[in-house]
């Protein structure tokens, strides 16, 4: 997508999210209501097909366009599996398959494929509760397959996330996939791409949390003046802004790196670093945002928790800072101390 088309896409999508994914919709999802209207408007706009070639019915965008869209969706706490469906479609299209209607859930790990049948249990699958399809990559290297499984072939146990979204486990016993293709990405790679996508959503949510608190502190008065006049609050928000900026910068840098390589491999270091960074600062961001808003930010009524609770959930999704940090640290240690600096300057693991 050229710059202009991307900006147009983001503008229309932003308007849709602002109008249709408001507070009531996000709250209703927590009560178990599926926002069918929102989802159909999202599909009408073609967003789950944003990174699918025109020939396959998509918007002809790239991974970069998708990631920019996901940062935006994060900043509106859009409570539907846009990330999952759009990323699944990117992989399916690259595999020469047919994009799914969605809503779809994404699986990397926990499943096996034998004789064309899928078995196993995938745990903590985002949006398992509402998924019409499960898209899974099974295996690594040339043996990797991407399969589409119909909801009817899954036994789903819903366990809502702490942000109230319908996460859960999906169990398959000799399920027959409706599509089964050689996958351009391995299981490991899908986890990387999903982690990057989540990091971008976290960047959006973090940015929004900052915007909400800055706005609130300018309006809330105590001791006869706006609390934003107090230096303690100014410094708290400045520190919050720094942590948010770090989250955004890391996610954007990794997005840039990943967009410059094929979907199959590359940018592993940047992605691992970005998800580690985003997950590591999530708590500080949430804590500072809440501190600056007093009791109001702790209520169900106010929207701040739509963002802070997602940050807490998303930091764990597709690998926490412990997991990604361990991968980074193990790779750095394996390569040896002298390669650390070249690794940092090239954003590439030493061979």
């Amino acid at each position, binding site marked *: 997508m050229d710059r202009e088309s991307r900006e147009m896409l983001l503008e229309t999508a932003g308007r849709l999210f602002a109008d249709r994914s408001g507070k009531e919709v996000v709250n209703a999802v927590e009560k178990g209501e599926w926002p069918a209207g929102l989802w159909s408007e999202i599909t009408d706009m073609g967003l789950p097909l944003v990174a699918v070639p025109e020939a396959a019915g998509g918007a002809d965008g790239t991974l970069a366009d998708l990631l920019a869209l996901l940062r935006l969706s994060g900043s509106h706490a859009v409570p539907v599996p846009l990330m999952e469906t759009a990323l699944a479609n990117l992989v399916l299209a690259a595999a020469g398959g047919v994009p799914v209607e969605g809503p779809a859930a994404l699986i990397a790990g926990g499943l096996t494929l034998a004789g064309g049948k899928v078995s196993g249990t995938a745990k903590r699958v985002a949006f398992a509760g509402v998924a019409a399809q499960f898209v899974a990559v099974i295996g690594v290297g040339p043996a990797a397959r991407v399969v589409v499984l119909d909801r009817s072939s899954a036994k789903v146990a819903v366990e809502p996330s702490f942000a109230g979204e319908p996460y859960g486990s999906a169990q398959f016993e000799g399920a027959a996939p409706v599509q089964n293709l050689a996958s351009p990405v391995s299981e490991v790679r899908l986890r990387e791409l999903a982690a990057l996508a989540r990091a971008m959503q976290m960047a959006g949510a973090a940015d929004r949390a900052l*915007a909400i608190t800055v706005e609130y502190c300018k309006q809330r008065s105590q001791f006869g003046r706006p609390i934003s006049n107090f230096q303690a609050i100014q410094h708290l928000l400045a520190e919050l802004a720094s942590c948010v900026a770090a989250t955004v910068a890391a996610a954007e840098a990794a997005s840039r790196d990943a967009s410059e390589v094929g979907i199959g491999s590359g940018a592993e270091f940047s992605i*691992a670093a*970005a998800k580690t960074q985003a997950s590591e600062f999530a708590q500080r961001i949430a804590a500072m945002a809440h501190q600056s808003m007093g009791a109001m930010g702790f209520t169900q009524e106010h929207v701040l928790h739509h963002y802070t609770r997602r940050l807490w959930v998303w930091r764990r999704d597709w690998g926490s800072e412990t997991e990604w940090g361990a991968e980074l640290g193990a790779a*750095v240690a394996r390569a040896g101390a002298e390669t650390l600096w070249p690794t940092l300057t090239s954003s590439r693991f030493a061979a």
Partner: protein
Amino acid sequence: MSAIPKLEFPPFRLPPSAEALRTEVRAFLKTTLPGLKTEDRYPSWNTPSPEFSRALGAQGLIGITWPKKYGGQERSFLDRYVVTEELLAQGAPAGLHWVADRQSGPLLLRFGSEEQREAILPRITRGECYFCIGMSEPDSGSDLASVRTRAEPVPGGFRVNGTKVWTSGAHRTDYCIALVRTSGQHGDRQRGLSQLLIDLKSPGISIRPIINLAGRHDWNEVTFSDCLVPESALIGGEGDGWLQVTSELAFERSGPERFLTNFHVLRELVRVVGRQPARRAASVIGRLVARLWTLRQMSLAVCGMMEAGQSPAIEAALVKDLGTIFQQDLPEVARLLAESDATTDEDMADFLDIAQHATMMAPAYTIQGGTTQVLRGMVARGLGLR
């Protein structure tokens, strides 16, 4: 919701020409640095070595962005960035020329007279002429606009009286750029301040050491008693000192020395945990690596904005804040990890000395070049809070 001012750090990648220069700098350092002990190399930008500064100058690596007619290479800020970060990461003793290359030279280039530029810049690029910063005074720290040192206009120049403190390197440098009051009264704040280029060999200057907590003599108290300086020492316009000093501080704040000063601690930590650390240790190291990588990406973004002609003063302040706090956290996190996960007791003991030394030096990072609180005040202003 009304929009709040955005602090963005658009990803920026160094161009191939800068990466090619990196290869050259690495090759140069590889032949120049061996023979120096680690403790003589860190912090790089505080460690003086006239031999090293001259060798670097001979390579054309000082003042590389400056015009050729002043000894520069007319290369970009991005090239300078690469040189700077390589010096820091590899622990090159670049302390003598650091200030001249980073801020005094650029200041003269921007505001100085032709005579000043011709007399001084080529010597800086050769690694033979060094500068110190005369901003702080006993009663003026964060509140820099309250400086009292007075330069009274006299026929042919100025008569300077007053005291500067914390003047790093005044005892081993040639010039001081001093922020002084040339007109008006104390209390006029920013108005009436000017910058003077003062030759430290001038009569009427006494330089007294101030020893820091580590026993090092980096700092000085510089006292001017009826020190006469020529009119040609005035940098820029009379009364423009505040404007100029602010632009100087932007250079001072935005560089990689705000997160790479104790990089060796992280590198040595990787060494002591061995090639196959336990998962918990790997995770701690990975988190530090991720933070450092992120800081570098942010700093590159600031560099890219500067290259594009913007003046990202607030973004630079934010990176300095995050970066200096990282530098403070690093030795402590590393110390605790080494105590549990070093491969041998001997390695651990050696590393604990490195980490402890780094911890001892760390308080300075969040004070010099603008304290954490001053920086946060700037970021808060950027957020529209004040």
